[in-house]
């Protein structure tokens, strides 16, 4: 075999990115100096007070060691930090089941309108009709989109929505005399599903996916008993495939008095084309920060409304929004069968504003076109990569496609390595090693927000990486090569956690 020199080994050409300088920046504490200030309060128009005299022992003795910086240093600090981040505004995120779509700017503008942003949850309802109208219209739209009959906007995120939905299921069963014991969860499910079931006091029955990565309906029929509270189903599944026997699944569950919970994370494949309420779902959550464009913000906030059928309505979290005889909206707290509150106040209201703005910007035709483009984009990627990356399932993909790293593994390269190399090509990685049912998964969801140009750049990058895997695997194994930091030592970070900054002043504190 001829040996190749390093210069001859294939290294792909990055077309989406070019190397460029980014500013360095330390921690804010490292630039702090006593006396620097970035604020000036208005003078006090009431008499000054002596904190020690008023508070006694409750007065703080030692100030918190927060940094002392000027305004320009703060602007530079966070601006520099921001330039080290990838973001949707910079390019595609192929992350599966995250639905990293465009976050419209009008959403940000309207949520900051003074009457909306400054509303206090306890201000009199007569002075909050604007906020209540926003909640009312969003509810109506989401009910129409999902085909469900009742809804709560209270949960703060998807997992919180799952928690609420399973609580509803539990309350429903409890009211019939037996809360039941188990929740069936496919092994392809997002980790929040079993975590949620456990927190609600249910035993998790892990349900093996069939050869197509979907639900084995015959096996399900055998698994569902009178002690099954619910099946938690993601549809389309986490491999992007629609459960086309969903009506049989619903029937099997209902025959034993069990409920069908749908994880609505993948609604971007269904919105405007079909409705979960129509195909037998009893209760489901939505992710406003996925399907409905509210921004991910580096990890949150989200919002996880829960929609359900009439038979679960009495158990909804309190308060429930209703329109009175006088035409005004009001919050009804008199709900004796409610599961209670799942959080203070009414939910992540700021995200309701953004989601509603998104729905209004789209209308019925826009939402349908959005869904169609999302599914088209995913299928385009599937078509253009299936010769190089293994498709574990031949079932049609909807809004996301899952490959496995089986072919690349022959060269010792895994999905995680390919993902890191993708960074050098200017993309955020796809979802790595999930769902668990696909060994070495590459889960790709482009969303509708990607132009053909961006998709082609992504395909080009993945194709070049595939060639690098064959001809120059080290290039991939050592990636990324172009970032400010290379692969970080996560092992030491976990073994010896350093979770805060310390100077000599901040040693250990015994006294406040």
């Amino acid at each position, binding site marked *: 075999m001829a040996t190749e020199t390093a210069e001859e080994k294939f290294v792909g050409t990055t077309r989406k990115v070019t190397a460029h300088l980014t500013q360095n920046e330390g921690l804010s504490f490292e630039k702090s100096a006593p006396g620097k200030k970035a604020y000036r309060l208005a003078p006090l128009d009431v008499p000054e007070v002596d904190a020690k005299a008023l508070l006694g022992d409750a007065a703080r003795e030692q100030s918190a060691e927060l940094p002392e910086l000027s305004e320009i240093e703060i602007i530079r600090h*966070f601006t520099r930090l921001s330039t080290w981040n990838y973001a*949707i505004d910079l390019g595609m995120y192929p992350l599966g089941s995250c639905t990293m779509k465009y976050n419209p700017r009008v959403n940000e503008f309207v949520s900051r309108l003074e009457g909306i942003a400054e509303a206090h*949850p306890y201000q009199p309802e007569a*002075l909050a009709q604007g906020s209540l109208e926003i909640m009312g219209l969003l509810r109506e739209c989401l009910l129409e989109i999902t085909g469900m009959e009742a809804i709560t906007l209270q949960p703060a995120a998807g997992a919180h929505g*799952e928690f609420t939905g399973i609580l509803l299921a539990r309350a429903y069963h409890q009211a019939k005399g037996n809360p039941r014991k188990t929740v069936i969860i496919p092994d392809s499910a997002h980790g929040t599903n079993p975590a949620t079931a456990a927190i609600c006091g249910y035993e998790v029955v892990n349900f093996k996916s069939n050869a197509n990565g979907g639900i084995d309906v015959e096996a399900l029929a055998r698994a569902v008993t009178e002690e099954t509270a619910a099946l938690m189903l993601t549809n389309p599944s986490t491999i992007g495939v629609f459960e086309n026997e969903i009506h049989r699944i619903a029937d099997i569950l209902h025959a034993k008095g069990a409920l069908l919970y749908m994880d609505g994370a993948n609604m971007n494949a269904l919105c405007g084309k079909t409705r979960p309420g129509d195909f037998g779902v009893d209760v489901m959550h939505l992710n406003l920060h996925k399907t409905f464009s509210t921004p991910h913000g*580096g990890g949150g906030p989200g919002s996880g409304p829960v929609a359900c059928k009439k038979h679960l309505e009495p158990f909804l979290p309190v308060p429930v929004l209703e329109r009175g005889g006088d035409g005004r909206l009001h919050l009804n707290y008199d709900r004796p069968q409610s599961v209670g509150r799942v959080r203070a106040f009414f939910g992540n209201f700021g995200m309701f504003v953004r989601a509603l703005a998104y729905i209004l910007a789209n209308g019925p035709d826009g939402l349908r076109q959005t869904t169609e483009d999302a599914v088209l984009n995913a299928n385009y990627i599937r078509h253009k990569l299936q010769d190089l990356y293994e498709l574990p399932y031949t079932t049609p993909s909807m809004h996301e496609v899952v490959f496995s790293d089986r072919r690349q593994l022959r060269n010792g390269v895994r999905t995680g390595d390919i993902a890191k190399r993708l960074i050098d090509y200017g993309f955020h990685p796809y979802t790595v090693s*999930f769902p668990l049912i696909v060994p070495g998964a590459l889960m790709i969801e482009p969303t509708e927000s990607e132009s053909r140009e961006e998709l082609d750049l992504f395909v080009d990058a993945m194709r070049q990486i595939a060639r690098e895997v064959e001809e120059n695997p080290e290039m991939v194994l050592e990636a990324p090569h172009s970032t400010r930091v290379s692969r970080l030592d996560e092992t030491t970070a976990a073994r010896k956690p350093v979770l805060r900054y310390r100077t000599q002043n901040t040693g250990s504190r015994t006294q406040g």
Partner: protein
Amino acid sequence: MRYLPKSDAERAAMLREIGASSIDDLFAIIPEEYRLTRDLNIPRQMGEQEIVDHFKAAAAKNANGYASFLGAGVYRHYRPVVIDAIVQRGEFLTSYTPYQAEITQGTLQAIFEFQTMICELTGMDIANASMYDGSTACAEAAMMAMRVTGRDGVIVARTVHPEYREVMHTYAQHREAASGHPTQEVGYGADGRVDLAALEAAVTEETACVLVQSPNFFGVIEDIAAIAEIAHKKGALLAVAIAEAVSLGIVRPPVEADIVTMEAQSYGVAPSYGGPFCGVIAAKEKYVRQMPGRLVGETKDKQGRRGFVLTLSTREQHIRREKATSNICTNQALVALMATVFMTVYGKEGIRELALQNLAKADYAARTLSSAALAGAGKLLFAGSPRFNEFVLQTEESPDALNARLLEEKIIGGVALKKWYPELGNATLWCATELTSREQIEKAASVMAQITAGVR
């Protein structure tokens, strides 16, 4: 549609390339009976100007230009403009959870700074990257205490925010049914603070957690040292909830606590009719492995450069699934960034000065509105106890009548407490912050005087 970057020609070309005759081919897997053949019945597509007009109309239906004395878990504080200048940057706003550390060092370092500053303010060793809000943070803290101690009893003070207590009950209900150990509530004394004798009687060897709030729902600062002693004597953990984060600038942090749960909304987050806000859990270092939520840690890369990563992920749902410390995935990251900028802008001196101003304003408001010289003055409850920026007034007039009259002068008065604390009769909870002007306080006082003049 203007958010979609494709022309019809491109769509057609892509369909041809993948061998589909039409887009319907890609949806054929949906059983025909469930395919929608009609438009969704939602409002028609709107242009940007129409959307703005829609929400401006909604905003106009809310209170505008009112003076407000509302607090009760959501506080009006000035938001420095640099907060939005920073969080509106697309690299923060539209970035994902920092699982890929090499391209999210901005987010990760900002969280590390957040965690550090929360520790400094609360007197704890470790803090997480946020929970949904103060109420769910309390529920999670109780579960954390149960994991740490292996016990399942929980005691909550009645002086904890009523909605926080409701949330804790929601999270606990099935567990309580299974264990037979309901969450117990402990009342308060004439001083508006936790009844220490009642607490002592309630804590047993089965108690995992005593949870109090300070400043409490009445604005009164609890005797944390005494409460801690009671809890620790029986091996229970003490969790202290803080709803008004600005208080930490001037009020002694609850260093005797094992867990601190905080709502950081006061740090530069708009009231926004109740959310999104920013819960945090902070704790003593030894409890780190039972902490829920994301944690950012410092580490090095292969070249020895400092960097930050999400760490101790085996606690979390994406690794541990049903054995996770919490089911939380999405948190409140961007809101925590607002709080991070706020804490950085005010800094060591500013956070103290801000709190001192709040103390002064609320003291003036409490004295003015309860002044013996004021006809129609409310009686200041718990007058002898230390408090921060909230206080309780008891009036002859019903809160409805009082607040209706105040509204005529475009003043939103305190929250009526009867529905949660019927024993307090005609009591209202008032808050004054650095944004409350002397003029507004004196106006409220004169309205109260007029009511009495009308009654007598």
